[in-house]
């Protein structure tokens, strides 16, 4: 009898907070949950789209309820990796703490549907192209087969644009052929014919990542869940006539052999770009000359780089790039008046999600502004993203088992001269890093330890010889004057010309 009383009391204790919560709020699917899901999840989570399952009605959402609470609470979903900071982003996809709590309360309350008549209709989604039928659709010329499992696959595909005149582009949209496996892509333009040559030489469709994309003009990217690229502020970029589109696709095998044939849609404009614009990458060329070397087991390896803007500009978007080991990435602008603006900070960098973060309002960065970039890498075995087990020493390289890292601002200028001066400053920055790297390796050349293939070894020998010759006082140091001469020489050399800011407007 006593026991019964006790358990009854316990039961009351257990039930009362639940009942209280239920009565006060009475969270229901139709009234509270459907608007959150339909507005924030369903655009990807519906049949035929990239979300792996549909969230389109009470039944499908109820079934996934527990998972939805978990991934929204840990902010895995919706995908958004920028920490809240000094600037607001116009494409912020994250849910508010109140929305996340509502989802959790609904599950606690037993996932009630409420009155089905109250459920809002699904928003009007487009079935294929999200921003309307493009003016030109460029589709991969062949289907590419991706195996069922194993490491990720990168592949470049060349698509002739066959343009008979230069065209200004105002928006690009990517349409994955096999949304289950296409993870992210980068677009380039090639006017040299090199990409076609690589494609012809490679037996399989497209060509491999071992071929350099140097000389191609980077024009943007797409990742799972991003919106189509619509350039803001009347900006456009140019596709020169005769250019080929090179699409670099990153595939994730998903347990089943699949084939992909993706398309890119272009929206053209009769008007040229409203202003000159470009990208400012710190450090340039994804950190190739940064001298990245991350020791196996190092839990917090820091890379830093700073660049001073030579001209005024207005930044309108930011994007970070590194591979699997990066954890924290930051870009801060310190204005000439000392004011610091954090343009991007992510403590949850995830290689699988490579978002562009668009500023709600352009950020004015006067000449003399210093951009400080910081990336922290975790090359320990406890980093679940570490692609190598046990960890190995990692250097800069294009494979995902290598590392790289930089943060890129998209910025507009008043004049072409400002843009050109900014590009030149970035090339100067890169040339300086290049000299540092060669100078570091001058001992290797003398004793024959220089690694790499014959051609690169030869190039290194020439470069070291040149720098040694410039070291007039032979003190194994380059004075600022000697360095200036070296940079001038290097900037004229063919194999550096391909580095530096990639500009288009």
């Amino acid at each position: 009898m006593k026991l019964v009383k006790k358990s009854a009391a316990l039961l009351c204790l257990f039930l009362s907070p639940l009942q209280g919560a239920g009565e006060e709020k009475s969270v229901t699917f139709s009234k509270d949950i459907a608007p959150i899901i339909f507005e924030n999840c369903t655009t990807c989570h519906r049949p035929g789209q990239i979300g792996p399952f549909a969230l389109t009605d009470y039944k499908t959402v109820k079934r996934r309820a527990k998972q939805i609470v978990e991934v929204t609470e840990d902010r895995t979903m919706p995908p958004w990796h920028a920490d809240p900071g000094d600037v607001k982003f116009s494409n912020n996809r994250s849910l508010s703490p109140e929305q996340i709590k509502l989802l959790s309360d609904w599950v606690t309350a037993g996932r009630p549907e409420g009155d089905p008549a109250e459920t809002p209709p699904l928003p009007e989604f487009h079935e294929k192209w999200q921003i309307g039928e493009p003016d030109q659709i460029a589709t991969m010329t062949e289907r590419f087969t991706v195996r069922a499992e194993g490491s990720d696959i990168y592949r470049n595909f060349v698509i002739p644009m066959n343009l008979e005149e230069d065209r200004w582009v105002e928006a690009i949209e990517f349409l994955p052929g096999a949304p289950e496996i296409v993870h992210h892509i980068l677009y380039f333009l090639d006017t040299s014919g090199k990409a076609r040559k690589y494609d012809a030489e490679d037996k399989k469709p497209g060509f491999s990542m071992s071929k350099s994309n140097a000389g191609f003009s980077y024009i943007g990217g797409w990742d799972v869940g991003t919106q189509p690229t619509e350039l803001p502020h009347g900006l456009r970029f140019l596709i020169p006539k005769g250019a080929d589109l090179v699409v670099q696709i990153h595939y994730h095998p998903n347990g089943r052999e699949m084939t992909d044939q993706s398309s890119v849609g272009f929206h053209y404009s009769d008007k040229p770009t409203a202003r000159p614009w470009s990208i400012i990458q710190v450090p340039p060329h994804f950190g190739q000359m940064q001298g990245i070397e991350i020791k196996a087991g190092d839990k917090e390896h820091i890379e830093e780089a700073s660049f001073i803007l030579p001209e005024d500009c207005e930044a309108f978007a930011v994007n970070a790039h590194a591979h699997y080991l990066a954890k924290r990435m930051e870009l801060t602008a310190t204005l000439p008046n000392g004011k610091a603006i954090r343009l991007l900070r992510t403590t949850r960098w995830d290689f699988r999600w490579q978002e562009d973060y668009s500023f709600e309002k352009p950020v004015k960065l006067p000449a003399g502004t210093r951009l400080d970039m910081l990336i922290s890498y975790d090359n320990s075995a406890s980093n679940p993203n570490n692609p190598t087990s046990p960890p190995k020493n990692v250097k800069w390289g294009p494979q995902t088992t290598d590392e790289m890292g930089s943060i890129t601002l998209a910025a507009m200028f008043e004049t072409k001269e400002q843009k050109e001066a900014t590009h030149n400053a970035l090339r100067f920055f890169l040339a300086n890093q290049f000299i540092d790297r060669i100078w570091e390796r001058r001992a290797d050349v003398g004793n024959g330890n220089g690694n790499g293939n014959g051609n690169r070894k030869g190039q290194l020998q020439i470069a070291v010889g040149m720098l040694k010759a410039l070291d007039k006082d032979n003190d194994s140091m380059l004075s600022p004057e000697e360095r200036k001469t070296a940079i001038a020489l290097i900037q004229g050399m063919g194999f550096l010309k391909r580095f530096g800011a990639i500009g288009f407007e």
Partner: protein
Amino acid sequence: MNHKFFGAASVILLLAIASLFGGERDSIRLKDSSGKLVEPLANKGQKATVLFFLTTECPIGNLYSPEITRIVEQYKKQGVTCLAVYAHEKAAEVQKHQRDYKLSLRALLDPEVKLAKFTGATVMPEACILGHDGEILYRGRIDDRAVKFGTVRPAPRVRDLRMALDAVLAGNPVAKKVTKPIGCYISFPEGPLPKSPK
């Protein structure tokens, strides 16, 4: 109340629980994807049975398909029966999934989640090893490649299910009987949602 009485009471209680479970186990009859009635837990001379709780739409589960097929083929020779268990799909959907992902094991439809309730499975994919007498010898992940939603190692470091199966077949106790699987949750139609496994 003396010790003898207490001891006897425990034995009776244990027997009662055992018979309860035994009864439940024998009564589990499910249709497979071709409509045939199957008693998945009946002793038919198999050394062990592996249940794979699966769903057609979970990207993590689908990623495991080639490994599941390898386990099915490899352990078949050693007298292990493998069964897939689907709680949320219709026969045609299961058949298509098995074809698409080249899954070569018999698939059961369990809309009332009887097997999940019997074994305590909560996730898809989750594996459960049953001894020939129906004893639960292992329950949990197939291996450690999935870390959390959206984070999957390029290759597993610990192959828990294979280790457990090897121990069972060698007549050894399973070192780690329960592990935490990562994947999509089995949706239990009524009652509260089960807590996340530890």
